[in-house]
């Protein structure tokens, strides 16, 4: 344990509980990065709180030496909202999976983003239900064979980034478990965002969906198959930094690097971010990672407490006496 004022180290953030994911699971790398960037935020450990639902990913809070709540399946956003609105001082982090967050918990997920509760949300997307042993999830590709889809899943997968933008999220980003540097940059940007911040993390489940993201995330192809959205920088990608993106009419197109548009994550509308999120429906386009959207918006947790303060300022802090002795009264002697 460090002294109260000493800067935190990564080790300070490790709890005494044994980490229990499968060897090789992408969750380890994420845990490591989160502990890394959190240590540097200057927030004391006792002000940090991790909340999760149920799933492999949702075991995360047990491994953080902070306050933590491992709740029930799909409901983490609701617990996080309760916690953060009750105490806006806390740095609240939510961890969820593609099943927890987008299947059973899709609605709470949508509403926490819409309300802009100042919670950092890490969506571990492994495109499968890990904990229950490998059924397809809302992000599983069509045709995926699992025990509950022996002839292939017939569901059209959900795109978490598009979904979040459709909900009006103020911060939306994507990163990859195996891309430590990018993951840490992205987590840091989320940490510094004031408001609900969603980071979708492509996470490899070695047991039930090994290599799901290899086509874009594997190191040797990554630079060509992905494009990093860096606000204020040109939309350039490719190992040789030779390709670029530009809005051409209603859809983006690939151009030479020099002609690339500059990426803005704070357009007046989330339309441009959505165009990026949906690029995968266009053949041959790179998969965007990085920061899709980052705009300021009123904080729900702050708003709720501010109304109380305003009411107290206006009417005076109510006492028990005010409460009970109100309305039309009369006296019996």
């Amino acid at each position, binding site marked *: 344990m460090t002294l*109260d004022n000493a800067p935190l180290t990564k080790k300070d953030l490790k*709890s005494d*509980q044994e980490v229990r994911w499968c060897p090789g699971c992408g969750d380890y790398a994420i845990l490591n990065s989160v502990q890394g960037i959190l240590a540097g935020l200057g927030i*004391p*450990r*006792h*002000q940090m709180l*991790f909340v999760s639902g*149920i799933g492999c990913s949702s075991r995360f*809070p*047990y491994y*953080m*030496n*902070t*306050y*933590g*709540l*491992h*709740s*029930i399946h799909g*409901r983490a*956003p*609701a*617990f*996080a*909202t*309760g*916690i953060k*609105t*009750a*105490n806006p001082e*806390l740095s609240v982090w939510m961890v969820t999976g593609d099943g927890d967050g987008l299947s059973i918990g899709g*609605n*709470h997920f949508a*509403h926490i983003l819409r309300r802009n509760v100042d919670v950092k949300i890490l969506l571990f997307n492994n495109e499968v239900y890990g904990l229950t042993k490998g059924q397809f999830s809302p992000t599983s590709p069509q045709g995926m064979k699992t025990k509950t889809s022996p002839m292939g899943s017939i569901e059209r997968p959900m795109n978490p980034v598009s979904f979040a933008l459709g909900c009006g999220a103020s911060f939306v980003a994507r990163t990859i478990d195996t891309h430590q540097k990018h993951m840490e940059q992205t987590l840091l940007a989320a940490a510094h965002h004031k408001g609900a911040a969603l980071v979708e993390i492509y996470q490899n489940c070695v047991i039930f969906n090994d290599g799901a993201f290899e086509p874009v995330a594997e190191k040797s192809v990554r630079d060509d198959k992905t494009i990093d959205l860096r606000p204020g920088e040109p939309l350039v990608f490719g190992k040789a930094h030779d390709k670029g993106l530009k809005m051409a009419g209603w859809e983006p197109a690939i151009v030479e690097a020099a002609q690339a548009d500059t990426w803005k994550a704070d357009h007046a509308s989330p339309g441009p971010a959505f165009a990026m999120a949906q690029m995968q429906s266009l053949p041959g386009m790179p998969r965007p990672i990085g920061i899709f959207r980052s705009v300021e918006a009123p904080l729900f947790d702050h708003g*709720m*407490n501010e109304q*109380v303060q*305003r*009411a*107290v300022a*206006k*009417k005076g*802090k*109510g*006492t*028990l*006496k*005010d*409460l*009970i*002795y*109100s*309305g*039309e*009264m*009369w*006296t*019996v*002697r």
Partner: protein
Amino acid sequence: MSTTRASNAELPLQQYENVVIRFAGDSGDGMQITGNQFTHTAAVLGNDLATFPDFPAEIRAPAGTKPGVSGFQVRFSSSDIHTPGDQPDVLVAMNPAALAINIKDLKPGGIVIANTGQFAERDLAKAGLASNPLTDGSLKAFRVIEVDINQRVKEALEGSPLSPKEVQRCKNFYTLGLMYWLYNRPLENTLKWLGEKFASKPDLRDANQKALQAGFNAGDIHELFQGRYDVKPCTSMPPGTYRNIMGNEALAMGLVAGTELAGLTLYCGSYPITPASGILEQLASYKNYGVLTFQAEDEIAAICAAIGASYAGHLGMTSTSGPGMALKSEAMGLAVSLELPLVIVDVQRGGPSTGLPTKTEQADLLQAIFGRNSEAPIPVLACSMPADAFETAIEACRIAVQYMTPVILLSDGYIANGSEPWRLPKVEELQRFPVQFLTKAPEGGFLPYARDAKRARPWVKPGTPGLEHRIGGIEKSHLTGNINYDPLNHEFMVRMRNDKVMGVRDSIPTPKPMGPDSGDLLVLGWGSTAGSIASAVEVVQAKGKKVAAMHLPHVWPLPKGLDTIFARYKAVLLPEMNLGQMARILRSEYPGVNFVSYPKVQGQPFFTAELVTKIEELLQTKR
């Protein structure tokens, strides 16, 4: 206003001990306001009283139709009363639908005041009536007073800048004026209320005040009635400051008070649902009391946010009705496992499923006690009257924080919307139960699942340095709270949680029978049957029967000492607005007692008379 005095002398003033009036009209006729104003005035005059509004079910029906009828019953009395009365003495019917729906309840020989201005062919058709009840002889058992209120209001407000439609909206105050005259009530109270309510709309204020006065004057001018009636103040009401209060209101206030007595901040996570919405709405108006309200996206999010708030150190609560309770059950199980304080309010309504949303019922009892997966014990309380919801809510807060447990507080549609005079408690006399958060590790180290004498674990506010810890819904080790799959630890924890909740008995009183200490029959109630039972038992006691009444504010765990009480009576009668749910519990807990279940599942409370009949029937068969 001198009118009141001046007209007093002209007609004979008859004294009544108590009177029941039912105002009935279209949803748009403002009958709830009329009823409430009458109630307030009666209250200020010092009557004991009880009210029972009857809302149209769920949806707004077209004007003039039966499903659109809205009613408000008020009983005011010079003696102690416990219910809004079985049968009205007077029925005010603003239209044919209102008459048709309510007439069957009117006391034989009772008064019908009918607004003939709304009894045209068209109106009868809307109400689905083939003939006009005012002329077809179907009302001959009653005294019918016909007044063309539409016309009278129009006349009274001639020259008003209001539109004809707006003028007609003043009908209810004309009607109220008429009733004030008939029952010898002063206008001041309502005139003042109108003045405040329409302070910024003087045209509306003036019109309504004028209509009220016109209605009052009409009593004198048009010789509608043979006499006037009076109900003297109730002298048996204990001295004190009173106000009239509705159940939902009292419950919300009780939660605010309970939180204050615990030294905490109240956090309400809720989702609107009839008849519970009023609690969320009331709490939303208490922001200057520091209350935080969160209207969630659904009932599940509502309770989860409340649990989150409790984890963060506030007193989390959530309010709902039956279907919402069902949705919350999984999260309640988590609250049991986390051992955090939480108050869950269930304002019961008719079911199953959507059922009869605006009607009352007591059929969520077994759901409240048992409706969760596995062994997930939760203490359950039930309020019995509108005013008593205040104290019961405080008690729920007390148990929640002292035992670190979720608590279920049952109310129902009858209590929620009913009202009665409430003798305001002295603030100093309310018992405080301040919460002590754990702020640093005790000697030997911090153990999140160590326990105090009540078996409660420590409550730590996140943000406290050095006490970082993690909790969740997987089985926990005794003391450390770490995940633990060991068989014997599991059994230990299952029993510990159960023992803790059963231990609540140690801090609750044994209820006392009202009436003979032993005898032929004990009429046992819980929840909103309290008033009906008290009234009925008073009736049979007055006839010299050895019958007592007793009420259970704590329905789970049951208080100590019931066995010895039950043993002193030959039988125990259980009137319940369900198919006998408490009877089932009691039979399993107290073998050998002769429990007689008396179910009524009609979406409405027991009538005193029904209960009296049942009690007398039982006494008969007993011998």
